């Protein structure tokens, strides 16, 4: 059941000049959240952000009752969020959307680029909870774009690419050996990030007939199926990114 919940900011960690992680504590127990689901955040005190902002669930700690969001500063709304400090309040609607398929095999590859790494940590956690160890590939422009690797390493086998080679392999995620394999053994690919990156993962999947799930970041007015603005063109016609997605198997998309 979708809920509207008030949260308190527990911490706001600056990762680099554009990314930060908010840890939030709700005023009641967190509802059950699937990996790939998102929240709609109300940004107060900003004259140009009437609508809520959709943000993926980055991680959930049910023991501590804490929800984390991994956010990139792009405009006024996310800038305001970046300025929150401990004790500030934040109103969220959650959980929204569908979620990724949780696999039965460790032979799956999670690819995250830029703020597309956001949903990958919680996905990795959910996969690891089944006793599996997925492959996790994180891409960035430069070293400082990649952070908190230890958290991912707890759940799977991690590799990094940076465009300037300052960390891990030099290049795009699609340049990494994992995605250069002639006969890859992956059962499922997951991608979230800039569209060219997701398309590259999809091309890799297509070539080797591996299903690919992507999380789309369409603009949204409501986030819960009421406005019909967030459509994506699928084989079944227009579907709602907020309700039928944000996760789609690329076979359904006209990619």
């Amino acid at each position: 059941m979708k809920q509207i919940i008030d949260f308190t900011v527990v911490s706001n960690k600056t990762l680099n000049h554009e990314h930060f992680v908010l840890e939030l504590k709700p005023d009641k127990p967190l509802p059950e959240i699937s990996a790939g689901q998102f929240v709609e955040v109300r940004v107060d005190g900003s004259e140009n952000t009437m609508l809520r902002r959709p943000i993926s669930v980055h991680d959930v700690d049910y023991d501590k009752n804490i929800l984390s969001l991994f956010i990139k500063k792009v405009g006024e709304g996310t800038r305001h969020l970046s300025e929150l400090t401990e004790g500030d309040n934040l109103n969220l609607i959650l959980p929204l959307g569908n979620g990724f398929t949780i696999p039965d095999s460790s032979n799956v590859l999670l690819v995250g680029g830029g703020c597309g790494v956001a949903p990958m940590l919680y996905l990795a956690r959910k996969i690891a909870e089944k006793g599996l160890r997925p492959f996790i590939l994180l891409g960035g422009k430069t070293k400082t774009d990649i952070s908190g690797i230890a958290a991912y390493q707890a759940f799977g086998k991690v590799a990094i690419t940076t465009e300037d080679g300052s960390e891990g392999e030099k290049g795009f995620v699609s340049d990494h050996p994992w995605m250069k394999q002639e006969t890859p053994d992956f059962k499922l690919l997951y991608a979230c990030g800039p569209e060219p990156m997701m398309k590259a993962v999809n091309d890799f999947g297509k070539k080797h007939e591996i299903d690919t799930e992507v999380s789309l970041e369409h603009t949204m007015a409501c986030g819960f199926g009421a406005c019909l603005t967030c459509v994506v063109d699928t084989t079944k016609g227009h579907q709602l990114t907020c309700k039928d997605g944000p996760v789609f198997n690329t076979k359904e998309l006209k990619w």
Partner: protein
Amino acid sequence: MVNLNVNIDKLKLKNPIMTASGTFGYGPEFDDFIHVDDLGGIVVKGTTGKHREGNPYPRMAETPMGMLNAVGLQNVGVDHFISDIYPQIKDYNTNVLVNVSGSTIDEYLEVAEKINALEKIPGIELNISCPNVKEGGMAFGTSCPSAQAVVEEVRKVYKKTLIVKLSPNVTDVTEIARVVTEAGADALSLINTLLGMAIDAEKQSPILSTVTGGLSGPAVKPVALRMVWQVANAVDVPLIGMGGIRNATDVIEFMLAGATAVEIGTANFVDPQVTVKCIDGIKAYMQRHGVDDVNELIGALRK
């Protein structure tokens, strides 16, 4: 106990708060957040003769205290509505109205006639003001002869409460209001969205796939209030006011200007509980001002 009941023609509303078409899905989208039965009424998504895919993505742009949409009447079509949606929502204990849209008079007639047969739908809102479709829609609502024609024809086939929704994209809204009232509208609702546009300066391109779209939200409230007030002074049928409402104060303003009830649209996206908060807010206002019957507020603006 204050009285919140108001009447729109034969419709009895338990309070003046309704939801605006296209912003409330079919109702169940809000079941997690509120009891839809608490509302005076809901108006479901614009429904056309055939299923419509609507416009391509992107369909939304945020603007200062407002938003543009270019949904373009995406909907399942009247037959699918009747077979699949109606059974799910017919037992809401509130007025469930259908927003009837079309590209041709025949399409309006087809939809109106089919909806007329649905026992639990006590009225329709005739959408002659949608700015987001190429044919029909707003074109009907911005010229007197075409507005008159479509309303007259629909009146012949539709026997229950006929509400006509007016476009704000006109030189004189009272002209159209008079014409459609004479053509048989039982009530009027206003305003639909203002035609607007948003540009991405960095990409140097329009944000919406359709270039222009419909502006809604608090930004349009002053225009909406003005039109409700003008129309209230021009015709004698009940009015349903809307445009930028997000709290009880806004509701009261529309009622003072002459609205019998209101519809809340865009604000549902920001706070899915805004409608029930408005109901509570109206009660508090009435108590503070010693008003026993909400009907006393309708058109009560001191001049």
